[in-house]
């Protein structure tokens, strides 16, 4: 009953068993997510920890907050469900009606009024919440634990409302009549929140009638948090903190501020692990984009700072993150990622406009149903975290930059320098003696015959190098002649710090480049620099290798083409690559030089060589793969990735 396909779960599926026990039925909200049972488990744990576990607030107080906030969000699904739950807990219908329509008129204790006021403020004007609001609650005798639970229930409500809209959950029971006119008495200023209350034609009240809609006094902004007391939990003895430290390199302040509710933290850690850190559907980067884009539109400084930091550690440049935070349409993201963020922002910010068409749109961009569902859950999680943070007033964590476990979070950084293995190859047991040493010694003593022997030995290498640059036989012969003469004339400059073959290759590269320059054609050398300007290379052809028409084609592609034909295909493909990538591939894969030798021959650092090599190889693969496998080219990320 929703936008997503339902998958039958085994009778023993624990969350459903627990829901049947607690509620007597499995809400459609969860049925609509059976494509991802692991997500249901994580959600059910958080919901249970926040709502069901014994705490400082009563179950009825929590359910009333949920009902009130859901009504303010105009979310029929959650209002219907929790109205039903409260009726089951024995709360009379008239009282519920008052809570939904005008809680200030309901006969509730003063602190209950205050908790509802605060929850509404947090839901409707999160950026206005400040230490002053919490002091008001404390003055009424509410404890920090009670306030924390209130913040958690409000955040959970945002989560459930977003989720129910995103999955198109049909109410389990008919929404109460009161919902149609919800807020008529107290939803003053509803127009300030897009969609909320407007349809009901609510009366605009004054700040005195609706204190949650009263702007904070001047100078209030960003008052110092975190607002609540904390208990001293340490990662050594508290597993959720150990989890955050291991996965993020630090314990985000938003979690450190909730230590008064350790069981909730435990459930949140599982939720983060299940929803944010799993990578089999959406990538971690796509999920961080969602977090960043929504947090930015919610003006949540804390979450923007934290998730920019996380993206930085995923290798995303700061300016790209900044652009996503400002306007992702100008960030140069792929059309699919742009659509993903459009989808998430519509759901998060304009839920009344969200519908099945949005899901269909995402599927058209190649996302699978599971990925679309995960995007919905990520959007809901973001609203949960944003609301939580505003209620807790945590300050941005600025420690992570150095504390991140670099190898785990950003393998690219870890690999920026030569790896241990690569260094060992070069220095571990000392360089192997250069087999050309003896001839080089003779040649330096002007023994022309010895040099002739060296030339015969390396003619193939020099020829391949210059041909890869000049791209025709005639120029290659000229360039080769130049290179060899130059080498002979500068033998005294050869210090033996690199192998002779590497040194000779470098001379060949320069001779080839000189030839191209002299030609003054449009075969530009400009692309030898500015790797950064090339942008991301996205492999498009990601078809699995087999099964192919014949075993020969799939298992032994070499046999699918005659040797000469194969060579012609490879040469043609190589010559299509931009020069700098072509050179990297030529030296490394055709000449079989080591990474360090190839870098030295091209006068590049190893990281730059590696970057060019990766791109060159991917481009080459893109060119050649269609010739060596049967099925037609397919699109990158075709939905079952």
């Amino acid at each position, binding site marked *: 009953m929703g936008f997503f396909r339902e998958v039958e779960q085994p009778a023993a599926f624990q969350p459903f068993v627990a829901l049947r026990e607690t509620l007597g039925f499995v809400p459609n909200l969860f049925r609509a997510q059976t494509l991802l049972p692991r997500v249901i488990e994580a959600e059910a744990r958080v919901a249970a920890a926040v709502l069901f576990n014994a705490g400082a607030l009563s179950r009825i107080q929590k359910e009333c907050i949920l009902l009130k906030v859901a009504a303010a969000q105009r979310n029929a699904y959650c209002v219907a469900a929790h109205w039903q739950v409260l009726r089951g807990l024995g709360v009379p219908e008239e009282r519920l009606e008052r809570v939904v329509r005008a809680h200030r008129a309901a006969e509730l204790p003063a602190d209950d009024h205050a908790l509802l006021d605060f929850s509404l403020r947090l839901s409707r004007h999160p950026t206005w919440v400040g230490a002053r609001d919490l002091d008001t609650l404390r003055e009424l005798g509410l404890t920090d634990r009670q306030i924390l639970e209130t913040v958690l229930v409000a955040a959970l409500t945002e989560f459930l409302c977003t989720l129910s809209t995103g999955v198109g959950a049909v109410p389990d029971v008919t929404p109460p009549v009161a919902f149609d006119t919800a807020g008529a008495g107290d939803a003053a200023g509803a127009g300030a929140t897009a969609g909320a209350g407007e349809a009901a034609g609510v009366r605009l009240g004054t700040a005195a009638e609706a204190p949650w809609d009263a702007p904070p006094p001047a100078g209030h902004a960003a008052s110092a948090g975190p607002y609540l007391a904390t208990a001293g939990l340490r990662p050594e003895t508290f597993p959720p903190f150990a989890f955050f430290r291991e996965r993020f390199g630090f314990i985000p302040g938003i979690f450190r501020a909730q230590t008064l509710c350790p069981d909730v933290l435990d459930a949140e850690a599982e939720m983060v692990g299940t929803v944010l850190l799993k990578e089999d559907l959406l990538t971690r980067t796509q999920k961080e984009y969602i977090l960043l884009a929504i947090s930015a539109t919610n003006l949540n400084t804390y979450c923007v700072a934290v998730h920019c930091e996380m993206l930085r550690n995923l290798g995303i440049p700061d300016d790209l993150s900044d652009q996503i935070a400002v306007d992702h349409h100008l960030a140069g993201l792929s059309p699919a990622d742009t659509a993903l963020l459009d989808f998430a922002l519509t759901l998060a910010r304009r839920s009344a406009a969200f519908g099945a068409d949005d899901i269909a749109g995402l599927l058209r961009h190649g996302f699978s149903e599971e990925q679309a569902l995960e995007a919905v859950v990520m959007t809901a999680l973001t609203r949960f975290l944003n609301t939580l943070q505003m209620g807790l007033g945590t300050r941005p964590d600025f420690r992570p930059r150095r504390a991140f476990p670099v190898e785990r979070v950003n*393998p690219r950084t870890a690999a920026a320098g030569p790896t241990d293995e690569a260094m060992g190859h070069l220095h571990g047991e000392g360089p192997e003696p250069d087999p050309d040493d003896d001839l080089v010694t003779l040649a330096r003593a002007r023994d022309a015959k010895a040099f002739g022997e060296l030339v015969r030995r390396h003619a193939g290498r020099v*020829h391949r190098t210059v041909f890869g640059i000049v791209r025709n036989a005639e120029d290659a012969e000229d360039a080769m002649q130049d290179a060899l003469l130059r080498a002979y004339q500068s033998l005294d400059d050869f210090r033996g710090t690199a192998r002779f073959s590497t040194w000779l290759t470098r001379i060949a590269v320069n001779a080839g480049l000189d030839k191209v320059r002299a030609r003054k054609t449009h075969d530009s050398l400009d692309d030898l620099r500015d790797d950064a300007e090339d942008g991301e290379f996205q492999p498009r052809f990601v078809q699995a290798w087999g099964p192919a028409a014949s075993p020969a084609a799939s298992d032994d592609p070499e046999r699918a083409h005659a040797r000469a034909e194969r*060579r012609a295909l490879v040469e043609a493909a190589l010559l299509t690559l931009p020069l700098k990538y072509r050179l990297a591939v030529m030296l490394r894969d055709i000449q079989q030089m080591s990474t360090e030798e190839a870098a030295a021959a091209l006068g590049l650092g190893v990281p730059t060589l590696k970057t060019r090599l990766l791109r060159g190889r991917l481009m080459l693969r893109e060119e050649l793969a269609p010739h060596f496998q049967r099925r037609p080219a397919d699109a990158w990320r075709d939905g079952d990735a």
Partner: protein
Amino acid sequence: MLDCKHVVDELSNYLDDEVAAALRQEIGAHLGECRTCRALYDSTRRILRIVTDSRSFDIPEEVSERIVQRLMKKIEP
């Protein structure tokens, strides 16, 4: 687990066996689960084998000998 972008970023190093052991293990685990990256890895590895064995731009014997002779004339006293 690593995401696909990181696996692609490391693909070349992985093929060259130039990644640290821990990362190698993580990439291996990712390739075991992700069809797209697996396809990318498999095809790149096979294409590189073809490229390496292609003898592309090998110099014809007669050209090599002609160049050596011409060079020797210039440098021999």
